[in-house]
């Protein structure tokens, strides 16, 4: 019956049903494949590679099914290509920013200055890369906010990837009093750094008197740590250094100024005079 109901040209209601079935099957196949790939490759592939693979596989199935469905509907694909070309130009002009974002997204995926999970600074937005989509990049800031940045902006702005290299350096300036023993302070700090597992042995840490400041002898402490753990090492070691120095009688210097008076102060005399007056009474 439905074979005979012609909608237009040779296309019958049956053809429409077949197309719907094909698209539904394709959709569910793509979904099932995506779930299967995620489950089976979760442990074996990096998340960003897996995401790309799943997206490519899913969209490929849907696009192939859609093209097949179009041929069933009597559409000539060669004609579609020409029409698509013209439509592409029109859409391209009309949606420059979207196309710009799309192309930037493709280049971001190819060049990979950032990866999913990296800690980055893009245009002053600090946080973790949650997803790199075709049009935009999603960043979860350190305070948990969702920030969506168009890929064109990501691609054209300067990006700082805090975990792009496996190790990174951080530094402290520890200012101690002039009366303290700087050699002893350096040894204490060296021992602490050596004891910390994530303060890397190589490149070796540098601990030295950097300058003689206005109020303190400034000891420079430069430490390399794995990029994944550097912040924890930095915060942990700073407090340990402060406590250990204090335990050994070395104090962090406060700003101070020595004031020289032109004439000797007569504070004592005043006090003696006032005492004399009191005793008279």
């Amino acid at each position, binding site marked *: 019956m439905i074979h005979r109901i012609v909608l237009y040209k040779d296309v019958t209601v049956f053809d429409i049903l077949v197309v719907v079935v094909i698209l539904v099957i394709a959709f569910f196949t793509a979904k099932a494949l995506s779930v299967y790939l995620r489950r089976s490759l979760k442990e*074996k592939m990096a998340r960003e590679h897996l995401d790309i693979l799943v997206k490519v596989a899913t969209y490929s199935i849907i696009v192939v099914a859609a093209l097949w469905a179009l041929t069933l509907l009597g559409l000539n694909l060669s004609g579609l290509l020409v029409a698509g070309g013209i439509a592409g130009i029109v859409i391209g002009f009309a949606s420059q920013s979207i196309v710009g974002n799309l192309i930037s997204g493709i280049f971001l995926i190819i060049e990979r200055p950032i990866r999913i999970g990296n800690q980055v600074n893009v245009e002053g937005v600090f946080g973790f890369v949650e997803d790199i989509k075709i049009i935009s990049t999603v960043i979860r800031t350190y305070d948990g906010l969702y920030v969506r940045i168009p890929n064109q902006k990501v691609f054209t702005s300067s990006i700082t990837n805090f975990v792009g*290299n496996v190790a990174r350096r951080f530094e402290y300036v520890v200012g101690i009093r002039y009366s303290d023993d700087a050699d002893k302070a350096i040894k204490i700090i060296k021992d602490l750094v050596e004891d910390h597992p994530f303060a890397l*042995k190589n490149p070796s840490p540098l601990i030295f008197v950097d300058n003689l400041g206005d109020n303190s002898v400034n000891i420079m402490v430069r430490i390399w740590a*794995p990029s994944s753990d550097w912040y924890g090492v930095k915060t942990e070691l700073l407090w340990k250094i402060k406590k250990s120095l204090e335990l050994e009688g070395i104090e962090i210097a406060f700003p101070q100024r020595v004031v020289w008076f032109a004439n000797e102060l007569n504070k004592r005399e005043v006090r003696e005079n006032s005492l004399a007056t009191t005793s008279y009474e």
Partner: protein
Amino acid sequence: MDEINEDTVNTEQDGSESFSRNGDLAGSFFGRYDIPLSIKREGISISMEKHADVLVYKRETPYETMERVLLADNAQILINPVEPLNTPKEITPFLHIEFEKVLVLEPKVSKVVCITFPIEIGVFISGSKDLESLDIFSLEKQKFTLYGDPSNGIICRSWGSDVHPVIPPLNPLHSGVLSLKIINTTGKWLQVSQAVFNAYGMKIYYNKDVVSMKASMRIMSNRTAETDFMDSPIIAEMENSLELYTVRKLVVTSTKYVMEAGI
């Protein structure tokens, strides 16, 4: 004390090289235990007791305490050395061993030496069907290092070792013996001062006195070498350790590591 066999590049050893150990070392600590369990050895205290319907696991070492509650009826505990790359936190699969003395190697020759590696102890629980890692600890100090440069290098667990011609007397709770076959494939005299190993290939064996691994280091140039592990004990009748990557059912694609940033 037996001398270590030497061979050349052309004559591969068949894994039967014989070693003897020195010294009277700690007795058996590794192995399978039934519950309830209570072990005390060299500052380590491990217990697993049944309280009502739950099992309580406790472990104390000089610097650390760990307690876990298990909801299980029947279980066995397996304690054995594991890949030394899990404490204080698993951040790398690579172990970097720096030799205390630089080795100078003749062209086209292969020699076997003994170096040491740090011990990490794994506690596993085995139920009716599956094994699961319960606890990992170490009595040794941990330190990490960078092999190569910050952009292309790798983070490695760092360990310093003397180079011994025979198996040195070691405490198996602290360090193990790595029998390293160094093969100089080049036509030049070479100096070797370090080796980097990939954990996804470590084959650890133990008996009551010694923990061991066997590895090779094939030197390709004065800056490049390839390291790999061999699946055989250094003494006859040693037990095979249960490695973590086996328990985690990880698919290991390569057990080798190519050192490209210097030897």
